[in-house]
């Protein structure tokens, strides 16, 4: 019987670039920056790495297809290197692959690195992606904010939430993240904004205004994972282990079958339940979450999907400050996607970087107290057709 990966793999070191409009950096330079920090942190020489995974979601922008860009950028010794892509869950997918490789005993030390160079598109927002030759014949070409904005109307209709109340709660989500992002030295946007600025911002996709949307950035993040034995030989500090990593992908049920009401994300709920089970914890054991706040409504709904709010109550929990830095369950303590932006392939690993940093007690001005477990969550695609990834990190027992 499968026993899961809890405590079978330790994060030996992590690295993360400054996210932002890195006009001076190409994708290989971003990869090197993240990797160099990770190897320094781990105290592991590059030639001890036995396998590597590259996460990149938008292969037509700068990074390129296959694993060769990673192997070339880092001049890795000859080894198995693989590129993974799972939309916005790509970074966590790369981590999962490396963790599984170590947990299986296939290798002792593995690298996961995610990178995206979005600012080379030449315009704001994510590039429009073909949906495949058949789907292009019928499926709408909505933008990312457009696809996620629909959560809002369906959520409000289901729970009887007045549009103005929901808009205010969504604004609070963004306001809180901007407050937090001020203290995150690697964030793209480090400026607090007022509720009035958020509420009066230009509309992007009803009801999402400009500040309801995360930024678009360049960035890279990396993790070096290894067996607990090796980790103990490298460091006397408290070790951060992977408690669980779960992924769940849509099979068309939401988009084609008439049951889903559009107010929640089923894949997040399934992945979260499995992640809690694999980690042997419940939601109340978490000390922080880094969730996929691509849009404010996504974070709000995700709080219910992760079991951190009861269904229909996230609006009130948000407005009560439950997920603020001083609240019961801080979320996006580094500012999240809202302030880091969302270089797609890197985001999952950037989230893990923050949880890892908090568990190590290195978060400086934004350090939270008494953290045992932290959760990361990615949501790729769109709520009606998504890939959700949930991981739990904690101290090695």
């Amino acid at each position, binding site marked *: 019987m499968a026993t899961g990966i809890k405590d079978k793999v330790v994060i030996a070191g992590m690295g993360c670039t400054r996210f932002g409009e890195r006009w001076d950096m190409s994708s290989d330079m971003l990869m090197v920056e993240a990797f160099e920090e990770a190897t320094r942190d781990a105290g592991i020489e590059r030639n001890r790495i036995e396998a590597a995974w590259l996460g990149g979601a938008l292969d037509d922008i700068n990074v390129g297809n296959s694993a060769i860009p990673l192997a070339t950028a880092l001049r890795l010794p000859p080894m198995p290197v693989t590129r993974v892509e799972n939309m916005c869950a790509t970074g966590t997918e790369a981590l999962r692959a490396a963790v599984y490789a170590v947990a299986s005993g296939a290798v002792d030390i593995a690298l996961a690195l995610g990178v995206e160079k979005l600012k080379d*598109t*030449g*315009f704001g*927002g994510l590039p*429009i992606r*073909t949906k495949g*030759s*058949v789907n*292009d*014949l*019928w*499926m*709408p*070409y*909505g*933008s990312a*904010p*457009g*696809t996620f*904005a*629909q*959560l*809002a*109307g*369906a959520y*409000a*209709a289901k729970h009887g939430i007045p549009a103005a109340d929901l808009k205010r709660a969504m604004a609070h989500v963004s306001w809180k993240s901007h407050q937090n992002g001020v203290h995150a030295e690697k964030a793209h946007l480090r400026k607090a904004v007022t509720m009035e600025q958020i509420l009066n911002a230009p*509309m*992007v*996709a*009803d009801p*999402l205004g400009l500040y309801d949307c995360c930024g678009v950035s360049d960035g890279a993040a990396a993790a070096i994972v290894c067996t607990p034995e090796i980790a103990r030989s490298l460091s006397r500090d408290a070790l951060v282990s992977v408690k669980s990593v779960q992924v769940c992908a849509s*099979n*068309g*049920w939401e*988009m*084609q*079958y*008439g049951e*889903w*009401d*559009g107010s929640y994300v089923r894949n997040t709920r399934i992945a979260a339940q499995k992640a809690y089970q694999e980690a042997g914890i419940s939601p109340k054991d978490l000390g922080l979450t880094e969730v996929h706040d691509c849009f404010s409504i996504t974070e709000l709904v995700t709080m219910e999907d992760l079991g951190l709010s009861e269904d229909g109550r996230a609006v009130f929990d948000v407005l009560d400050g439950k997920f603020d830095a001083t609240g019961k369950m801080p979320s996006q303590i580094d500012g999240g996607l809202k302030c880091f932006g969302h270089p797609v392939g890197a985001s999952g690993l950037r989230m893990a970087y923050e949880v890892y940093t908090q568990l190590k007690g290195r978060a400086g001005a934004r350090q939270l107290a008494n953290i045992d477990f932290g959760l990361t969550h990615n949501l790729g695609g769109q709520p*009606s*057709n998504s890939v959700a990834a949930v991981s739990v990190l904690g101290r090695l027992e």
Partner: protein
Amino acid sequence: MTERYIQGVAGYLPLLRFDKKAARAELRWSGLGGSGRGLRAVAGWDEDALTMAVEAARNAVGQGAPARVTFASTSAPFTDRSQAGLLVDALHLPRGAESLDVAGSRRCAVSALVRSLRGGSGDELIAAGEKRRAQPGSAPHLAWGDGAGAVLVGDTPGLARVLGMATMNMDLLDSYTIAEKGLPYAAEERFARDEAVAQVLVPAVRQALSAAGVDGAAIALAVVPEAVAGSYKGLGKPCGLTAPNLCEEITEKAGELGAAAPLFGLALALERANPGDRILLVGFGNGADVLVLESLSRPEQATATEALAEGVLTASYSRLLNLTGGVDLDWGPRAEVNQKTTATVLARHGRDMHGFVGGRDPRGNVQFPKTPIPVSPEATGPEPYEDVVLRDVPARMASITQDRLNFTPDPPFNFGLVQFENGARVAMEVCDVEGPAPQVGDPLRMRFRIKAIDRQRIFRTYFWKAAPLSRPALEVK
């Protein structure tokens, strides 16, 4: 010869009406703004002659399944792709239906109707649509409107019967368009009016009245397209006509509809006529085809009447230019998306897409599109489907947004999940939205539209879009 009857008619207009006063004001400096009187029906960016013809055809055909389909237009988007064949697919008619595209003059739809009435047998659909290009500043740019009409002909009594017909050919160039240029060139209006009346309309109408054994004064309603205003007035005295010409009303409210005008007008006439009323129907262009009809009954739906009464007014001249190809706006890098469609994919899936054909799995769940393994949670392997056409199935909005980031030629881009009454759930674009988008739970209807235009290869694909169930009443200020 088997007696033939009109069995179905319908008219269709796009949602938008341009108030010509706005053009007069905008172009005052140039003197090119025309009279400023009346409205012009303006097709959406995702409408063309075919899509509008499909909308009219749906109502003309009803639940019928004509064995022959004719598409008529002088502005057909393709010169080498059977639009009649696409009509067959859009109506989900059998692939064996005879299909024919006709063009060449503004009377092509009536010419096809005459042929069907004279020599055909079985049910035949003739659907006409027009979205004609004209140079901004020219008279046609404001005078012409976009729209469609359709008629169903059959062998059993229905809405009307034919009393007499006549045809006159004359190469009278009141206006012509050369494919190479794609824009019309018009002759002097006084020449066009006087010669059209004297050389074409009077002799052709007299011949048709004579064939029908009907005096001009006995005509209750006339449908006479006017290349130049005043033509019908000139026709009245010589032919003894006293009936109102419905095309004057259509032109005033929607613009001159080209090949679609006679069929739209016929629909309007039959919606207003009492049984026994005589109707004069004229197709004009390089000659004329003339029919004298007797109304037998009214159509169940007054689609042409409704089309004239519904709509949304716009006074934006720049929007008119954008929607009519009069200006090429730079939409930025987001509009550079490559939307190439391959023939292989269309060959496999085109008929289901154009017909909006989903499938019912063995458990009864309906889905679109069909997939090897059904979406039903109980399905574990490939299963057969029963075809289900979704275009007329009641539906409601399940989720929706107005997207202002995504490129669309006429922002914003509305899209969401649509829940059909039979259980099908489809992600769809929402069209015909002026102002706030529909809310979750609002009822919808389906419209045949252009799905995407490949701007690199100037190719277009077609699919269905959801629209609010009803249109607002047109409020003319």
